[in-house]
């Protein structure tokens, strides 16, 4: 990747491989993923369930379950520091302060036995040297900034007293409490209704602009990607198949998987009798093909070569990377004739 080096990226992921130990064998849920996030950028990661998008975000936060999943190769560089070299206590200083995360399930991400105020203040008290009274004041203004009406009351309420949309607002308040530089939002609106989703997406964008924050938005909804993101990474079975800016993705997609994914969504303003669909399913971790393109089995334009040669992610145009043998650039070095 050749980028004009005006600014060092905030986050750089290089050749990341995350493996899970299943019955003594290591299987890679994320297999050689590289990308970078610049400051103030919203990067979308799209893919179907099981493509490794959530595992990747867990790897970046170093939140993988100990003894089960681990980073086996590659590195994650955040603000110039390789997180592999950081101890758990150093990581704790970064988590919540410089990088924070919003999870999919607002119903389960909050602790039901503590008040909203207690859980919010915990973040602040952990990272700043302030009194409890100050923390409470800050909590109230935070709740206000995420659009919660009557924050003075909500502070003392428990999660079950709030609706799904309100809980997700609280999660966002918690995530932005320390004004992080990077926010990882893992399916932040999937569990919400459309009208509430619209509120939350608007809020996220507003905060991102106000705080000059970078966001990694993990989602399966291409509509959300189109509205929110600057850059998009499409993942399939643990690998990046395409990476480009949002406009190119929707108007000039190159990878067959991306094209078919775009075809398979019903569109409001078009009348289609049958939707495009992708036959078959994502191969499971244990049945992942060892060589060749991982999409080959479901790909309508796959050739014998696709099953033999593993394509590499390479630029087809400036800022547009694709991993598919339809494009010469994707042939690995030794195969180029």
């Amino acid at each position, binding site marked *: 990747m050749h980028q004009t080096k005006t600014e060092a990226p905030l986050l750089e992921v290089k050749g990341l491989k995350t493996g899970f130990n299943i019955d003594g064998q290591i299987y890679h849920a994320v297999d050689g993923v590289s990308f970078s996030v610049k400051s103030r950028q919203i990067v979308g990661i799209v893919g*179907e369930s099981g493509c490794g998008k959530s595992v990747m975000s867990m790897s970046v936060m170093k939140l993988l379950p100990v003894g089960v999943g681990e980073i086996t190769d590659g590195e994650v560089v955040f603000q110039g520091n390789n997180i592999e070299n950081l101890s758990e206590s150093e990581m704790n200083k970064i988590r919540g302060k410089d990088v924070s995360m919003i999870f999919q399930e607002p119903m389960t991400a909050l602790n039901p036995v503590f008040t909203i105020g207690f859980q919010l203040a915990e973040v602040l008290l952990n990272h700043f040297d302030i009194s409890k009274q100050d923390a409470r004041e800050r909590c109230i203004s935070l709740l206000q900034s995420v659009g919660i009406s009557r924050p003075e009351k909500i502070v003392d309420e428990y999660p079950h007293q709030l609706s799904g*949309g309100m809980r997700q607002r609280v999660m966002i308040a918690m995530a932005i409490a320390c004004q992080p530089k990077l926010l990882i939002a893992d399916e932040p609106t999937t569990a919400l209704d459309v009208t509430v989703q619209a509120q939350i997406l608007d809020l996220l964008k507003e905060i991102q602009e106000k705080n000059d924050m970078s966001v990694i938005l993990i989602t399966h909804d291409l*509509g959300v990607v189109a509205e929110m993101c600057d850059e998009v990474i499409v993942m399939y079975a643990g690998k990046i198949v395409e990476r480009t800016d949002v406009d190119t993705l*929707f108007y000039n997609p190159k990878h067959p998987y991306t094209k078919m994914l775009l075809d398979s969504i019903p569109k409001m*303003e078009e009348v289609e009798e049958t939707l495009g669909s992708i036959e078959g399913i994502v191969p499971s971790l244990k049945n992942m093909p060892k060589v060749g393109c991982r999409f080959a089995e479901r790909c309508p334009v796959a050739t014998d070569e696709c099953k033999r040669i593993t394509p590499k992610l390479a630029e087809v145009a400036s800022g547009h990377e694709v991993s598919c043998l339809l494009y010469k650039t994707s042939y690995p070095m030794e195969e180029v004739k």
Partner: protein
Amino acid sequence: MNQAMKERKDEVLLEVQNLKTYYPIKGGFFKRTVGNVKAVDDVSFEILKGETLGLVGESGCGKSTTGRTILRLTKPTDGKIIFDGKDITNLAGTTLRKIRQDFQMVFQDPYASLNPKQMVGDVVAEPIKNYYKKSSKELKPEIIELLKKVGLPEDAYYKYPHEFSGGQRQRIGIARALALRPKLIIADEPVSALDVSVQSQVLNLLKELQEEFDLTFLFIAHDLSVVKHMSDRIGVMYLGGIVEIADKNGLYAEPLHPYTKALISAIPYPDPRRKKERIILEGDVPSPANPPTGCPFHPRCAFATDECRAVKPALKEVKPGHRVACHLYNE
């Protein structure tokens, strides 16, 4: 709409009149009824033969309860359900059992709606065995034919649900619903648990089967673009009632109710070049146990007047085939 359907356009398969389903809230020492959750509150519509009626709405709007009440899985509090000319509202026992052959359901969660201990062949054969004295052996060719129809391999017959992916399980659920050759299928969020690429497979399958088996669908979902793709007419529900009902093109080209407008504008559209005006609704859906007075939508509506706060608007036809419940369209 195909030709055959046009000819039978006036044949109504299902008619729902002023349907109400209330769930009592028990409280106090003697567990007396202290209130009602008005899950479905005065809903009327009809479904023509061969047509697909979509019901959309956000969680808690009563769309699933409507579906369940029509199947008589829940007892209606008031109103009438007329299926194929027969009033089935108060049927019970064997008469209800008999009529139930004609309507089947496809459920939302393909992981919870199949018995994990049952072989797929038995899962699909069960509805038939319920009504006819036939052995598994007799039924086997028919079941395998059904499995093939829904796009499953023949050897699926001997497998168990856990051996299948979500999309394939949903196909099993569809095969089971088809087993008795019903007239009406109620599909309650049949694709919301599936990935987009798999979702489109199942949607296409449902459309194909509708042609082949001459089915009528009540399609319940929260995703407007999915509902639009599947339905001929669409009803929009809010807090237990239908606020707007029209044919799909009319509804999308010219939504009348402020809620429908907001709902349509809230859908993230997969086109980054489109900058659209979005109507953001304030707040959440109120609790159906304690609905607001007047129009249930008035606390979130930008056009609410005193009349809206006091009087609940009735569903009125404002254009041919386009009915809306809103005071803005009073003459």
